């Protein structure tokens, strides 16, 4: 399938933005007490979120997880609001109630995010059920990791989605690790996608470092869902460049393994292709990087200049 230059540039941009966003957080986390809580980044996995979201319409819904930054930025979240939430400020998208782990951005149809592994799957099923119930022409995309595919909720969610033929796309971001555990140490099968057959739905294995491949696969799965043909399990093979979180020293991740995957950087890959095909110039690529850096710097400034919530604000937002 021919992908428009516009789409390719859009994906390149959201990947670069997300990468710069992560890189900034890597440094900020080194400053003691700067950022509260655990910092979980998706450096190196950008092609998944960017490729998937490029294939979605604004009214499509995404349910993401603890590793959400790329997903949200690619879906169109305001970097300022997200950064401010990561900084736990009053101006954050969730007023500091969430912090980085459960960023919810209803404005872009990322209405609720869970850091409970596997939870995104059953919630996504409910969200997709609503789309089917109201005959809305939209789909729900559920992001989760390879580790989440071992949770009971994965099973119950896929069985129900398959049974009711819900308009949901299950995107498994297989980054080779669940915490400190290598993929082959937590399940015996080669591909998570093999599990699709257990629910009567198609399963596809996609190169998760290839934005165009992810985009194309998502378009197909989305169309299938819109046609009423039901859900798809889409496994994107990628790799976690950094530790599970920034406090994780990766003592268990072979250095050369990390190196090898860094050689497959999804951004260089798409960037190179666009430059070679003459879609963009070298200068334009650097321009995009520069613009992304500025955007992130602005988001950081916004966050740092924003006030913390007042202690008593803690009492708000429990009940409607």
């Amino acid at each position, binding site marked *: 399938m021919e992908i428009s230059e516009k789409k390719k540039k859009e994906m390149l941009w959201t990947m670069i933005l997300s990468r710069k966003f992560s890189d900034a957080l890597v440094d900020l986390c080194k400053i003691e007490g700067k950022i509260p809580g655990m910092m979980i980044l998706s450096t190196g996995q950008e092609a998944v979120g960017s490729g998937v979201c490029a294939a979605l319409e604004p009214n499509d819904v995404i*349910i993401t997880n603890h590793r959400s930054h790329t997903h949200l930025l690619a879906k169109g979240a305001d970097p300022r609001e997200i950064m401010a939430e990561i900084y736990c400020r009053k101006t*954050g*998208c*969730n*007023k*500091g*109630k*969430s912090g980085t782990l*459960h960023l*919810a951005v*209803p404005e872009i149809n990322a*209405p*609720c*995010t*869970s850091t*409970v592994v596997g*939870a995104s*799957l*059953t*919630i*996504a*099923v*409910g*969200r*997709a*059920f*609503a*789309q089917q*119930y*109201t005959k809305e022409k939209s789909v*729900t995309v559920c992001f989760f990791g390879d580790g989440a595919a071992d949770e*009971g*909720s994965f099973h*119950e*969610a896929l*069985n*129900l989605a398959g*049974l*009711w033929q819900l308009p949901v796309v299950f995107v498994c971001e297989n980054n080779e690790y669940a915490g400190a555990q290598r993929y082959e140490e937590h399940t015996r099968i080669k591909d998570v996608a093999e599990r699709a057959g257990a629910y009567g739905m198609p399963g596809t294995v996609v190169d998760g470092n290839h934005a165009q491949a992810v985009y194309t696969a998502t378009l197909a799965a989305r169309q299938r869902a819109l046609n009423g043909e039901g859900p798809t399990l889409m496994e994107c093979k990628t790799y976690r460049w950094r530790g599970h979180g920034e406090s994780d020293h990766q003592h268990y991740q072979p250095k050369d393994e990390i190196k090898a995957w860094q050689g497959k950087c999804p951004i260089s890959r798409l960037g190179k292709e666009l430059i070679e095909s003459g879609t963009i110039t070298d200068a334009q690529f650097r321009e995009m990087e520069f613009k992304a850096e500025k955007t992130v710097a602005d988001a950081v400034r916004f966050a740092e200049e924003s006030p913390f919530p007042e202690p008593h604000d803690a009492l*708000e*937002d*429990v*009940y*409607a």
Partner: protein
Amino acid sequence: MQKLGLGQAVNQALREEMLRDPNVFIAGEGVGVGIHDSPMFPTTGLLDEFGPARVKDTPVSEAAIAGLAVGAAEAGLRPVVEIMFNPFFTLASDMIVNHAAKLRYLSGGKSSFPLVVRIKTGAGFGAGCQHSHNLEAWAAHCPGLKVVMPATSADAKGLLKSAIRDDNPVIFIEHMGLYFAQMPVPEEDYLTPLGKAEIKRPGKDLTVVTWSGMLGVALKAAETLSREGIETEIVDLRTLTPLDRETILASVEKTGRLIVLHEATRTGGFGGEIAAVVMEEGFKSLKAPLRRVTGPDIPVPASPPLEKFYIPDETDLIRAAREIL
């Protein structure tokens, strides 16, 4: 006035709310085609009337049932899902406690989760501890949830309607022992407010705070005590959270004596919360020690004499009353 079992009252509330609001749907194991075709059960007949699009029979998947409610509620639907028996609340508890109750807070108040989880509870049918285990105290210890436990059919109808129209997740617990008790229920559409207890019998000598299946025990005991000239005031909580402290405290201020009566096991039961509230805010009114009349700290046994031993009854309540009068 019509006389209905509590299950029939729930059925009527579901039916009326589904007629009123197309966003209301029900889901659960056997809520459509169930093994019981008795008219006394809460969802009987709804599939025929509303069809499979709004009455969803699900696989045996409690986590997915709760997740279905969470996701659909966020989208603006009004799910009423059923967890068949209270012990299986455990299997749905991550979705209910970590998600239904917290996702609104985590969103900074941007997303809402207007859902109802109906749960059947109660000892007394010989099925043993994996079917009978009153866990209302778990849900009542979870900010973000409201917990409703009706003791009469009329309350069940009005409270369930309020629960369905409430914009927060509500845990609605039905005592199966009340499904077959015929009680008067107003025909019309009415709402019973959440968070308001009701004095089911006025009295000046002794306050009994109770809820759900135990109200009947309290009323019977009160009759007996009354013949001896002891007037028991019975506070039926109806909603555990939000808790109606005012009604409890006003009653204890009048009587000076408090008994909490619940079917759940004693240690860590919600009776402790009632005790604490009174001890904090009504201490001066208290003339006597507290008594808790509850299930003992054991799983609910299957054998009839053992199960009978488990379930608090009038004798237990009257004995406790005598101790503090």
